[in-house]
């Protein structure tokens, strides 16, 4: 079930890229990012109002937990720097490599309070097949 939800998230990401990519045709990176965030902010506030959720900020939440929005903007910056020099395909392939490696590291050590999922050496075979698949996508 969780796998299916992950697949759906990925599919929605494709739709988002199509939308945001079209917006980028008429505006710069950060202007687009501002428009995207304003639209997103309005829609989530609407969800919050409709669901009548209470908004309450407890003290003692570590500061880094508030940083995801900033991290997202850094993703935009890093991706656009890389796009300009390496092109779209290579940026995405190497980016996916970065995502996979950091995911394995975080899983293995249970960083950020996640569940520890130790890396099993037998999985190297699967990893090689995955890496080969990404390689094929990049060169073809």
């Amino acid at each position, binding site marked *: 079930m969780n796998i299916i939800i992950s697949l759906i998230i990925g599919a929605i990401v494709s739709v988002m890229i199509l939308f945001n990519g079209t917006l980028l045709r008429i*505006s710069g990176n950060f202007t687009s990012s501002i428009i995207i965030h304003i639209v997103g902010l309005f829609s*989530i506030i609407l969800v919050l109002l409709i669901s009548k959720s209470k908004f309450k900020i407890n003290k003692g939440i570590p500061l880094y937990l508030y940083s995801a929005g900033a991290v997202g903007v850094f993703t935009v910056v890093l991706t656009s720097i890389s796009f300009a020099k390496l092109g779209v395909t290579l940026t995405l392939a190497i980016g996916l490599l970065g995502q996979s490696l950091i995911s394995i590291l975080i899983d293995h050590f249970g960083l950020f309070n996640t569940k520890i999922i130790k890396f099993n050496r037998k999985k190297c075979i699967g990893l090689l097949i995955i890496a080969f*698949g990404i390689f094929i996508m990049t060169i073809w």
Partner: protein
Amino acid sequence: MLLVYLLISVLAGVTVVFGRIINSNLAEKIGTFQGTVINYIVGLSFSFLFLWISNETITISYASMKTIPIWAYFGGIVGVMIILLSNYVTPKISLFYSTLFMFIGQLFLGIMIDYFVVHNMSIGKLIGGLLVLIGLTYNLSIDKKQEA
């Protein structure tokens, strides 16, 4: 110099995963809708900050706004859906699997969009994507054996 740019694209990938975990951790503390509001407020502030630091100027004319379809402005709504779903699934399965299955979903819908909208079929993406899926299925089968 090339190495620097390769490193930058690796970091771009790393920030994607960081953002996803931080959002889901915040959601557990203050609620998923509330956490998403914070995410967008902080993201919006940083977008303004970067706009100010960079030499990008806001030059959207009304004429150019009409040249793109109206749905192009709704990426933010789609983004909210992604964060809410991701907050649900991220604590439940290994990050590695969620990362790669999201990639598969993205890739195959991307291939379909290319095919139906741009009328272009990328065989390389299809074969590469199938290989990623095979590798993942193999690793999942190792997990199943371990649990058994």
